[in-house]
């Protein structure tokens, strides 16, 4: 490149001597191109001596007239590119001097560009609401985890609830509140133009865990993440944009000196908190007291016929037995380099992260190749391809076992093995046999084995061609393939019959193709028009296979030939849907200060009923940089922009079979028997009726906002207000059980929901010295959610799974609909409840007394981040906060409620009523709720005593880094060392494990309605400490 420039200069210089004409002034003209041989439009070209300037046109051509004789400094600048200056010697005889320039993209400045779906826009021109994260914010956030974690606290209005401490766990992501009840509330993820398949419920809630399909993406490969929050930004994704869109762009090769990056991380993981449960003495004391209070005499009768002699000396700390210090590591190696013909990014990673849960580990290998090939001018091929293999060793959690059992059904009086009992007792056995098999988490860990193996290919091929300068035609083909196997092996000692091997196999082929045409025009350097038109087709296919065998002694996945058994053992399932779309976007800017955008998308999908095949999704947005006006009166405010937009987006996260009447067939004998045959004959059942009117949810969003920059951007801030109305919201309407329909819940478009909120963020550079900088970022967002209409649905029709969260008209989506607990009666020790009129009563009747007592949504979420840099050291830390809302601890009714001999309890229980006049937190200890006027089912003891303030402030991370200064090193360009601690401190009033909850769920409605506000033995988040080093060669 330098050579070329020299040549140009030489040429200009020689002109000097060859020229015979005489001018007093000269003209400098030329063409500006980028690394891809593409014209750079809108480059500012300034003659430094006079300040006179011009701008390159759509072909990258410019002409600078009246350049005086002498040495002239000319500067070229354009956002996103490195600024260049050139010195041009102008002689009287110069005439026209040709000065072409190749401008290099500036990675640092790329932040000013945002990816908006099928293209990029300068942030300045943006009329929608988009947040951007770049590589450096993403790659160091955890060890071997998913990239979602990086978003937490970084984007106002985006609520990220990190997955529980289980390795590779799923996070719950909600952008600007929850706008759906029964349909999926997750945003659309698009990686390099590929709309990702992302089904957290593909493995159900098996083992007390949901799957995290995003964990197959290596955060180190990510160049940037753009979060499209409002309709102006997301309408280009039409019927899938309503929950927001998260666009992931992977690293691309760059021209220039090739570089090799190696990064390594090592760390450990512990739970953020360990819950206290009773030891043997405490447990026996509580049981004895309840035993006597319930009218029994003598010593409390131990469960399972155990005698006191048997359990002498036994005090098992089960929680300690199932948690550990997890060891984690991650290694990344990547190459980046290229020339004008080919640019490449190659990356490979290995990570292995153990969680603090015994038996839980996530190992990931992944590799990526991104190539950009420019064989001839104006033509570019891009190939982007990655493969990853994740292997997750799972230990069951929550209701399903593991840590869940360790704090509940595994009693301190139970030993792990029968021969741990007192040898003098009758329960003692010489054999090393597990005691209490189905409540013993160690037996479960050792006799069952759960693995999930996920192989994922993400590929795309893009061909773009510019027949002329202003037009870009592009076609892109995408293939997203996942092969997921969930395996389970149960030892014969566990099943007490035979070894059982099970496998749930999924094969997902998600194909999509896009064709776009983008046309740009600039006129008079004032008008700039960009028109994008495109079409997209997506075909998603999933095959499911379930296998079960009792004649293997290992996992299915250890058998290559297991497919031989398929005929006799398999149970098949499928999922398939298509989308076909047309879309267009028009951007117009006037004088680079007035901006307008119109977006239109038209979607058809096989998921929609035959009466509603096509949906239209328009949006319009305006932007205005007021500070560019001549009348601008605040000189210190260098940037002030106003934005407003309106648009319609849709949510089509509905199961693919919902529009049809479906039938269950059972051919008998035949494939795996579903238990539905009768009398040796076939059966057939109609599951439900068809609904040809089924359609997407419609979300209308208004967004207004302002961006401000003060003191040359020493302080930047932005504020946004949004108002979203979901109509035709999908509800799983409940049919009466007596209808006898197989599926009592049918999807109907009947609901209306409103979300409105304010987002504010401010960034300041408090100190900005050469050797010391200090910057602060703060953001806060408040979302208010209200259900406007749910048709005829009764409160229990739309539930959030366990924990009694419900949807009621006139309330936020997801309220705690339970009986209010008032206090413990000091006279009798009985719990006192409140009826619907607020009167105190001993009666406990959920059928008539439940009311709205709280909601699942925080009032405010946000973060405060500080970053310091002293010479080569940097220090950063972030507090993340979530204020308001309620947590319902669904396990507290057992940990702190009725005393039964099959559960362990918590020491807070000692604050119970014992005698007349006692003022206590918990009532008199009893064995059955019937003694308190309730149901004999202790699981129905749901009331506000277990409802807690969900607020918390968490020191999400502290990170200290050091960039070793290598001057003129032959080996290293850069070496960075850092140490980081995640979830170091948590401030909360919630007495359970952890206030940040992403519990296992069975479907989208449970996630929407139960939110992240119900916990049931859910493992806490991890506290992790790690050190890392990045090397660039």
């Amino acid at each position, binding site marked *: 490149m330098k050579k070329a420039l020299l040549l140009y200069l030489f040429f200009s210089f020689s002109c000097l001597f060859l020229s015979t004409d005489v001018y007093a002034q000269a003209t400098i003209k030329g063409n500006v191109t980028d690394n891809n041989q593409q014209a750079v439009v809108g480059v500012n070209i300034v003659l430094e001596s006079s300040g006179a300037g011009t701008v390159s046109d759509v072909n990258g051509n410019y002409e600078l007239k009246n350049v005086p004789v002498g040495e002239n400094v000319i500067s070229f600048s354009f956002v996103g590119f490195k600024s260049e200056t050139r010195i041009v010697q102008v002689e009287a005889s110069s005439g026209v001097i040709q000065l072409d320039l190749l401008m290099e993209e500036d990675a640092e400045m790329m932040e000013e560009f945002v990816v908006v779906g099928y293209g990029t826009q300068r942030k300045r021109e943006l009329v929608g609401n988009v947040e951007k994260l770049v590589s450096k914010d993403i790659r160091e956030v955890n060890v071997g985890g998913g990239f979602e974690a990086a978003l937490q606290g970084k984007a106002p209005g985006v609520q990220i609830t990190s997955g529980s401490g289980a390795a590779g766990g799923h996070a719950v992501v909600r952008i600007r509140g929850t706008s759906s009840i029964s349909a999926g509330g997750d945003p659309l993820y698009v990686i390099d133009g590929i709309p990702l398949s992302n089904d957290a419920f593909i493995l159900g809630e098996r083992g007390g865990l949901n799957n995290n399909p995003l964990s197959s993406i290596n955060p180190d490969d990510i160049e940037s993440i753009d979060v499209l929050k409002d309709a102006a930004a997301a309408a280009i994704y039409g019927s899938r944009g309503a929950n927001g869109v998260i666009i992931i762009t992977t690293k691309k090769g760059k021209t220039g000196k090739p570089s090799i990056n190696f990064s390594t991380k090592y760390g450990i993981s512990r739970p953020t908190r360990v819950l206290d449960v009773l030891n043997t003495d405490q447990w026996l004391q509580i049981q004895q007291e309840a035993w006597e209070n319930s009218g029994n005499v003598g010593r409390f009768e131990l469960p399972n016929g155990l005698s006191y002699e048997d359990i002498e000396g036994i005090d098992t700390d089960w929680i300690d037995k199932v948690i550990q210090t997890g060891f984690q590591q991650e290694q990344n190696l990547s190459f980046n380099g290229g020339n004008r013909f080919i640019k490449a990014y190659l990356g490979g990673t290995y990570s292995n992260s153990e969680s603090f849960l015994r038996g839980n580990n996530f190992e990931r290998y992944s590799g990526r190749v991104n190539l950009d090939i420019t064989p001839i001018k104006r033509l570019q091929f891009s190939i982007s391809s990655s493969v990853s293999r994740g292997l997750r060793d799972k230990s069951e959690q929550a209701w399903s076992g593991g840590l869940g059992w360790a704090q509940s059904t595994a009693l301190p009086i139970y030993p792990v093995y029968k021969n741990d009992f007192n040898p003098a007792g009758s329960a003692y056995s010489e054999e090393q046999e*597990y*005691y209490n098999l*189905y409540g013993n988490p160690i037996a479960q860990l050792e006799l069952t084995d759960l693995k999930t193996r996920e192989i994922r290919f993400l590929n795309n091929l893009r061909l773009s061609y510019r*027949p*002329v300068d202003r*037009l870009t*035609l592009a076609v892109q083909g995408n293939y997203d393939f996942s092969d997921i196997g969930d395996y389970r092996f149960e030892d014969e000692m566990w099943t007490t019959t035979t070894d059982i091997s099970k496998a749930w196999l999924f094969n997902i082929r998600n194909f999509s193709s896009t*064709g*776009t*045409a983008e*046309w740009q*025009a600039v006129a008079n350097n004032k*008008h700039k*028009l960009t028109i994008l038109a495109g*079409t997209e087709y997506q*075909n998603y296919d999933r095959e499911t296979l379930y296998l079960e065998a009792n004649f293997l002694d290992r996992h299915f996945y250890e058998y290559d030939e297991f497919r031989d058994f398929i005929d006799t053992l398999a149970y098949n399932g499928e999922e*398939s849907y*298509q*989308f*076909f779309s*047309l879309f267009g976007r028009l951007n117009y800017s006037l004088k680079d200060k007035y901006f307008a955008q119109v977006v239109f998308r*038209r979607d*058809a999908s*096989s998921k929609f009923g035959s009466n509603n095949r096509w949906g239209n999704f328009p949006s319009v947005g305006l932007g205005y940089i007021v500070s560019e006006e001549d009348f601008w009166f605040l000189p210190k405010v260098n940037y002030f922009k106003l934005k407003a937009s309106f648009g319609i987006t849709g949510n089509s996260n509905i199961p693919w*079979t919902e529009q*049809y009447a479906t039938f*269950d*067939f059972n051919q*008998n004998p035949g494939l*795996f*028997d*579903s*238990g539905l*045959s*009768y*009398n040796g004959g076939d*059966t*057939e*059942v*109609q599951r439900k009726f068809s609904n040809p009117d089924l359609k997407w949810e419609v979300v209308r969003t208004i967004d207004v906002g302002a961006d401000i920059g003060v003191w040359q951007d020493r302080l930047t801030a932005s504020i946004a207000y949004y108002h979203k109305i979901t109509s035709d919201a999908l509800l799983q309407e409940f*049919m*009466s*059980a*007596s*209808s*006898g*329909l197989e599926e*009592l819940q049918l999807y109907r478009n009947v609901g209306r929901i409103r979300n409105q909120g304010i987002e504010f963020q401010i960034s300041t550079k408090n100190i900005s010295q050469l050797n010391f900088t200090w910057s602060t970022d703060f953001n806060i967002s408040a979302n208010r959610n209200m259900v406007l209409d749910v048709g005829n649905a009764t409160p*229990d*029709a739309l539930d959030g799974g366990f924990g009694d969260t419900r949807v009621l008209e006139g309330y936020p989506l997801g309220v705690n609909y339970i009986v209010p607990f008032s206090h413990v009666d000091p006279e009798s020790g009985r719990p006192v409840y409140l009826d619907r009129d607020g009167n105190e009563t001993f009666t406990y*009747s959920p*059928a*008539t007394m439940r009311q709205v007592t709280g909601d699942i949504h925080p009032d405010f979420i946000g973060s405060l981040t500080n970053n310091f840099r002293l010479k080569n050291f940097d220090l950063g830390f972030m507090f993340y906060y979530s204020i308001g809302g309620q947590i319902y601890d669904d396990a507290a009714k057992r940990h702190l409620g009725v005393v039964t001999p*099959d559960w362990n309890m918590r020491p807070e229980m000692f604050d119970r009523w014992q005698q007349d006049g006692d003022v206590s937190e918990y009532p008199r200890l009893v064995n059955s709720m019937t003694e308190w006027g*309730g*149901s*004999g*089912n202790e*699981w*129905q003891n749901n009331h506000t005593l277990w409802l807690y303030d969900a607020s918390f402030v968490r020191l999400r991370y502290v990170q200290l880094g050091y960039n070793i200064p290598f001057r003129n090193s032959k080996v290293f360009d850069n070496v960075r060392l850092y140490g980081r601690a995640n979830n170091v401190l948590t401030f909360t009033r919630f007495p359970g494990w952890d206030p940040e909850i992403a519990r296992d769920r069975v479907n989208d409605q449970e996630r929407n309605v139960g939110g992240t506000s119900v916990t049931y033995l859910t493992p806490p988040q991890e506290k992790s400490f790690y050190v890392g080093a990045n090397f660039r060669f």
Partner: protein
Amino acid sequence: MMIKQLHKYQLLAALSILFCGLCLSSCGEDFLSTVPDNASTIEEQLNTKEDARKFLNAAYDALSFGNVYGGQFALVSELMADGIDGQNLDGDWNAHYTRSTGIFVGTTRNMMHDGFKAVARANNVLRRLDAISDMSETEKSQFEGEAKFIRAMIHFDLLRFFAQPYGYSSDNSHLGIAIRTTFSTDLVNRSSVADVYAQVISDLESAESLLPANNGNYADQYAAKALLAQVYFQMNDFGQAFAYADEVISNSGNTFDDDHRAKYGFGNTNELIFSLVSTDIGQDNSNGEFRNYFRIDPSTNSASVLSSESIFNASTLDPNDLRGLNWFNQPGEQIFCEKFRIDSIYANPVIHLTEMYFIRAESALENGDTESAVNDLNMIRDRAGLTSLSASASSGQVLQTIRDDRRIELYFENDRLHELKRIAVHDSPDMVIRGADWDCPGMVCQIPDNELTGNPDMEPNPEAGC
């Protein structure tokens, strides 16, 4: 002006892309219509006799579900009465045991839903019967009869769990359950107990006339008659109960087994008037739940369902009583029922001849025919290895013996709770069942949330426990 700068071919290229898109959109419906394999219409699915058999098989299959006759009905009828040791119970079972089911009880949800699945499946056959081309009128009658039998059976039993018994109010106007005679999503409120009985009887009378005398493993006319005997007996209508029980005993062709346990085993019984078939294919077992209830967990040496001492003592009172062998009991160990553990696969004996003898005996006694009553009772007692009751025994003594033997003989067979309530209505208004008045609110199961939720007008039962 800008358009002017645009060359013709640029415009063409751009337009052609759009055009392709539009083309695809107009013909796009084809590649958008992925229909699931299991999506169809009833018109396509239920057209032939073979189809109808499949759909009706599914209704029988629903009867055999673990939440219906496959276990739960039998369990709950004992839990709420006096046959279970409640010491180790928790959760839903304890709610039944303590007669305090709320609206969120899994067992009642499943009983209601799975029970009505059988009704809906039967109704779906009924609505398509006219459209079936390859069936004779006789065959259609038979299918109609089977469907109505299934419908009646479920309505009768769910009514007994979810409503106060027949005779609780003088005109039986107290709330029963929803009557479902169509396959639909319609909201249906609860009918009175009188209306539900009327519907049950009308379906059974219709079934009785439509069904053949012998119908293989499916319901035949004697199944309908036997169920009518049960229904009338529950209503304390001893004339009708006697007549139907007598007709079944005399004409059904079923004969009394020599071994009282034969009907709980595989293949060696001739007592089954209506049973749910089990085959050894896959999981096609109508008794799966029974095995779960009484399976011994080797790590703790305990079964999930333990029997009460009172039922154990009653059946071991006479050391010669062969029915005493029905219990697993070792000194210091827990007591649980063994009669369902003989074979792993056997037909679920929903209505059998022994029960018809009990009905005929007690009805005869009520009708004044003590001699017949004693004869019937002695058949059962002889088989159990007990001394025969003397023909001169007082009617009170005969009545008590019938009821005592019935309790032992029909233990865990979906009988005890309903029988106690029938007796209370008939002659013991002050009856107390394990500490609770027979007619207190908790003695009926609360209507579960899955029945209340979809219908804002559906009334729950009163919730005041017992």
